[in-house]
């Protein structure tokens, strides 16, 4: 079991890169502990800004820093970052096209029993609906590292959501296929395609293995790049497999699954089933309990595929 959380990887990469690039600035809103940014804050005091519990100010200040040539990373719980500071994200970051990287930590239902105030089950919808804003939900620690290294090279806005706890590796050390804004083919197949993002890619991969045992050939796409989404990979899957099942830690409206359905409907109609969180506050529980309850885990995916194929 992997013990390194995706947030730790972000801390490590930023710590390393900030030694060479003094324009990298990390900003937190009383969130450095949960962000895994404690060692960064300690070792780079001149490149760290604490704004207190003030997420709107967090994003506004980040945009101002970016407008003066800095490379800010605003790291705060995805729930507050994607809703409380939504207007700052829209106007000061997306619309003004400033080089701000918004890192939403403890995303989705990571905060479990803390409830809907702490869940970010609508962040793909809120952030993805803004022109200029890119949205990424990396799966494992290796992909998170590749993604952070990649966006460090560009100067455009992006929102990156990661979960709270370490997740199982999807890829192997030294063998991490990654091309920015291209879905990663985790496993090829010809009967059905599962398109997943974030923490649920691991479940999609496990489901595909189980389906193989039942004689169902399953393609798994890691759609970490939700915006701009990889249209070509979706259309190809729609043409080559009989069913697409999308899996995401997000509500049913305005999520990755909705985007997949829009693309297939216009280009290559195929049956698309969206496995999502409900349009309601989720039941109380830890993430894994919540995933199981709503059929988003490997078992639930297998059930949906066998019923729908």
């Amino acid at each position, binding site marked *: 079991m992997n013990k390194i959380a995706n947030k730790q990887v972000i801390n490590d990469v930023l710590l390393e890169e900030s030694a060479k690039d003094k324009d990298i600035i990390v900003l937190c809103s*009383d969130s450095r502990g949960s962000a895994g940014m404690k060692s960064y804050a300690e070792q780079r005091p001149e490149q760290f800004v604490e704004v*207190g*519990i*003030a997420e709107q100010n967090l994003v506004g200040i980040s945009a101002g820093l970016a407008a003066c040539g800095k490379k800010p990373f605003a790291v705060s719980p995805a729930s507050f970052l994607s809703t409380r500071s939504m207007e700052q994200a829209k106007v000061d970051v997306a619309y003004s096209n400033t080089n701000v990287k918004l890192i939403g930590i403890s995303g989705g239902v990571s905060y479990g*029993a803390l*409830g809907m*105030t702490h869940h970010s089950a609508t962040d793909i919808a809120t952030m993805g609906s803004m022109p200029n804003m890119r949205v990424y939900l990396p799966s494992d620690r290796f992909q998170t590292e590749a993604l952070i290294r990649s966006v460090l090279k560009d100067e455009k806005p992006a929102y990156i959501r990661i979960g709270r706890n370490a997740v199982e590796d999807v890829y192997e050390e030294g063998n991490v296929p990654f091309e920015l804004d291209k879905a990663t083919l985790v496993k090829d197949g010809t009967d059905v395609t599962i398109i997943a993002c974030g923490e649920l890619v691991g479940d999609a991969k496990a489901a595909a293995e189980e389906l193989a045992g039942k004689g169902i050939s399953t393609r798994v796409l890691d759609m970490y790049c939700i915006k701009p989404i990889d249209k070509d990979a979706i259309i190809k899957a729609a043409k080559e497999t009989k069913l697409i099942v999308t899996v995401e830690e997000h509500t049913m409206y305005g999520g990755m699954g909705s985007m997949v359905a829009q693309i297939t409907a216009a280009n290559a109609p195929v049956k698309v089933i969206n496995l999502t969180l409900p349009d309601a506050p989720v039941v109380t529980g830890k993430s894994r309990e919540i995933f199981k309850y709503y059929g988003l885990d490997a078992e639930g995916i297998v059930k949906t595929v066998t019923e729908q194929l």
Partner: protein
Amino acid sequence: MNLEAKALDIRKDIIELIYSAGCGHIGGDLSVTDILVDLYYKQMNVDPNKMDDPNRDRFVLSKGHSVEALYCVLADRGFFDKKELFDTYSKHLSKYIGHPNNKINGVEMNTGSLGHGLSVAVGMAMAGKMDKRDYRVYAVMGDGEMAEGSNWEAITAGAHYGLDNLTAFVDRNRLQISGTTEEVMTADDQEERWAAFGWNVISIPGNNMEAIDNAVEEAKKTKGKPTVIIANTTKGCGVSFIENKAAWHHKVPTEAEYQQALKELDERRAQL
């Protein structure tokens, strides 16, 4: 009723609840306990069986992470079954989640995202004025929470509309998650800030029951403007090793710590 004894009993319940559930925001629970006890056992007009009474007093826990303290008080006051709370708190499928939720009898508003409660309380106080009802509205904020800009919008509006039926508390325990409030984001001049915005300001030792009660009485007598009570509290108040430590914001006691905490509270209870 001996409110001091009640506050110690509630603290024991809080420790018990957090220990058995394996989660909770212990530091802020223990700093706000005395305020809640004065409001719920003495000052507020609320009846567990009449939460639809339009004349009831309203309470909003803006620092919603102190939900364990609120739930222990509500359970003890008979708003819901204590056993159900203790058996299910924060567990799979429970209705008792880790922040106040208005599906639960006694909870007026859902909170948990900081910087919402005071605006809501302003609205409740405004409605009271519109309907010519004489209920009072209480809101409790954390001192770290005062960094949220929305609070200052609510403070401006509360004074603008002269909402003397509104009393806010700041649980001034000088700590938040990342350290002291002064290190994280200056908050030292709370009294001057609120006064500058037009509020009646009362600054008290915030874990002193008599001081809390006197301040609430003074707030009730103050006309033409809202009152804020800056309650200078100790985070983790009542348990020596939890007091004044940022790390205890949401740490869960080990078995030995749990026993030690109960022992200390029992000792203090015996001294009353």
